[in-house]
């Protein structure tokens, strides 16, 4: 009896000990993620405090506490007339269009990686890969100076064409509004293609060689190997990348568009981030720019719900 009692007490003790150890472990694990939680709080939630500027009439150098509270004035201003709405509509159209074009062409790095993988000459392959990856490390400012040197009205291309008498007047590549979206897409591709394919090259090298051997034994040629082995094996990676790209739909960067913008192409190059910058920094309306940038969050939330809905309908499971 006594023994049994002792046993249960021992058991309880053991349990308690176990529980404590578990707790301790939990705390330790929690401590591990604390820095990241703080990072998230500081960089994702703390900046939201800046939204408060959208409700004030903030004019530096007068500090916020002395600024006038204006309520929803700036939001009303955004939608107060047709032209204003039209402008915002155009900006959103630009943002969506260019992001969409980027997503539409996101299969190109896959093809490039496959093609690169098929090159047998190792040296040639390395040269190509280096040359195509390098542009990724050039900042947009430098890309623009390259573009300017080549395509400005007195740039290399125009001078060359003029000297061989193909054209009489220089062609305006940079300062015209023709095919702005397409041009931006091409620059983006030139800069990002090599870099984007690295992930896929890694995935390709991870494919089990036995699959290829089996394929060859079955009499598959090179194209069939690509079609039935390489591409299916790359699909999971591709979809992860695609999802990431979609989640960045609205943040398609502004430095590219910032350096390429000018009076002639502004209408079609102004994406949301650039518009916010131009209004806030260029026109000195920081409060209005804040209100505008909140628009981005709003659109993001709407997009998220749409994607979630689609996912529910098609896969039967929601993402969030």
């Amino acid at each position, binding site marked *: 009896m006594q023994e049994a009692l002792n046993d249960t007490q021992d058991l309880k003790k053991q349990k308690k000990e176990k529980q404590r150890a578990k707790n301790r472990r939990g705390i330790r694990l929690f*401590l591990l993620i604390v820095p990241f939680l703080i*990072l998230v709080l500081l960089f994702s939630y703390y900046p939201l405090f800046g939204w408060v500027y959208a409700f004030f009439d903030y004019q530096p*150098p*007068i500090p916020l506490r002395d600024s006038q509270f204006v309520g929803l004035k700036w939001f009303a201003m955004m939608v107060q007339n047709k032209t204003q709405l039209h*402008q915002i509509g155009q900006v959103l159209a630009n943002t969506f269009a260019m992001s969409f074009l980027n997503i539409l062409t996101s299969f190109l790095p896959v093809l490039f990686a496959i093609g690169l993988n098929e090159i047998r000459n190792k040296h040639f392959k390395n040269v190509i890969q280096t040359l195509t990856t390098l542009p990724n490390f050039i900042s947009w400012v430098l890309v623009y100076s390259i573009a300017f040197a080549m395509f400005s009205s007195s740039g290399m291309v125009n001078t060359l064409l003029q000297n061989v008498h193909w054209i009489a007047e220089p062609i305006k590549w940079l*300062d015209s509004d023709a095919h702005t979206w397409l041009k931006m897409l091409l620059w983006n591709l030139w800069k990002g293609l090599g870099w984007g394919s690295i992930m896929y090259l890694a995935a390709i090298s991870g494919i089990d060689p036995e699959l290829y051997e089996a394929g060859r034994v079955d009499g598959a040629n090179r194209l069939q190997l690509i079609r039935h082995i390489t591409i299916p094996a790359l699909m999971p990676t591709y979809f992860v990348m695609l999802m990431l790209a979609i989640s960045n739909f609205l943040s398609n960067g502004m430095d590219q568009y910032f350096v390429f913008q000018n009076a*002639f192409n502004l209408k079609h190059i102004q994406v949301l981030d650039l518009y916010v910058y131009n209004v806030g920094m260029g*026109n000195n309306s920081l409060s209005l720019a804040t209100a505008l940038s909140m628009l981005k969050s709003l659109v993001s939330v709407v997009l998220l719900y749409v994607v979630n809905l689609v996912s529910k309908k098609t896969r039967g499971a929601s993402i969030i």
Partner: protein
Amino acid sequence: MKKSKIALLATAAAAIALILGGCGKSSETSNKTAAEKDDGKLMKVTVYDDLANYQGNAKGWFAKMVKDKFNIEMNIVAPNVAGGGSTLFDTRSAAGNLGDIIITGSGNGRAKKLVKAGLISDMTPYLKGMKYIKQYSGATDALQKVAGQTSGVWGVPSSVSASSPTSASEGTEPTFGPYIRWDYYKKIGYPEINNMDDMVSVLKDMQAEARKENPGKKIYALSLFKDWDGNMMNNAKQPTCFYGYDELGFVLAKANGDDYQDITQTNGQYVKALRFFNKAEQAGLVDPESSTQNYDTMYAKYQEGNVLFSFWPWLGQAAFNTTENKEAGKGFMIAPLKNMKIFSYGNTTNGTQTFIAIGSKAKNKQRLVKFINWLYSPEGVAAAGAQTGGTSGPEGLTWKMKDGEPVLTDFGKKVFLEGGANVPAKWGSGKYTDGVSQLNYPAVAPNDINPETKYSYSYTLWPSVLKATKTALDTDWSDHMGGATTTMDYLKKNKKILVAPGASYVTPEESSEISSLRGQIKTQIVNESWKMVFAKNDSEFDSMLTSMQKTVKGLDYASVLKVDMKNAKDQNKERVAIKKEYANK
């Protein structure tokens, strides 16, 4: 186990410290008064300067002069160099310290904001014995009023003048004017230029002549740039100045108060100027690089003689009229445009909007006030005159008194008339022109009389210099301009100048709603203006104009224009008032 725990905690702590480190704030607005003592040590002074076109530590003979006199080294912060706009002002002022010395405009409520935010300090406690600053009490009082204060000297306005507000503040050349390459104009036989339409055909002939003479050179009659675009395309405003207008917001106001034009109105001066550019473009006279180049690139083209028309004497003449070129009969001179009536700024008794002030966080304020006082002294004005203003430089270096009259020294002649020279070792080193005051701050109008010499600060008006600068170009020009001695002489004799009385009008603060509207509208106007200049034909130009008018109307242009119109009319009231005030003196 324990070790890892410690390591973990340390990492976490380090991460937090790193993160929080970025959020540091230095907010402490203390208003120290005169009590502090000057340590007499070498002082690095940060100068926030809206006028400067140079950023970094000031170098050269002027910097050496300041260092020798005040033991001050100036570090210039220049928004112009940093990409323009008000970004630099906003960020620096939001951080609570704009600079030790601040040169900026008082308009649009900026002076008020600076005082309210405690960024500039009152100079009153330091003014004992500062006779040059005190001399301009009218100007400092005017600034006090603009800043919305009832007492205190919050800064000293620039370009103060003792001359009549109804006479031109410019010296021998006006600020604006249709300057053309006289040598090519001569070669095509001095055709008559009745209006800007004629100008296009004259320029066309000149360009053809110039290209014939210099095959292989890319010569264009017109070359434009976008650096200074504001409420409108800056370059397109310049031809309106040939007809007596100047901008105020979206309004072009005539110097004599007769006319106020909305810049978007279909047959207004601004649209006419755009049309002039577009006609020139259609005739193949506009440099295709215009929309992408900056001022420096364009300036180089002027220097090489690849551009034939200049809106300003201080562009075309400064770049190309070297003594060598002028001796050869080449150079920019004002064209005899029949119907012009050039806008001229009258002398500003109480200074302009731009003023110089002391930052509230500055150390050794007494010394800084002494420095500012010196900038307003005859010696300071002569030495520091604005980069393009043409003051005479320091006595003993570039000029000396001879028989009671200032004359250029040999070194001065080399510097001002013969394309530059290196400063003698005693005065520092480097080229004279590189060493001028990079503050680019005209404390006193350069044409004012230097009380010590009884002649103007600007050497260009000295009799000795006027006599010495007669070259082949001047003679030929003079022969065809009815014997006029200088441009000003020609304009005055032929009544082709319209002086706007030099009132110290400061635009009042506008509501932030109006400024955001203005921001959006001006982007539209500037961009559409550029497109219109490069329109392929007249009908494209017209349709662009209509669409611009429609867009700005949709952006509530009317309410911004109302503000500008009122300001323009208020400005004229002040012009009338200062004219009366001076007449009654």
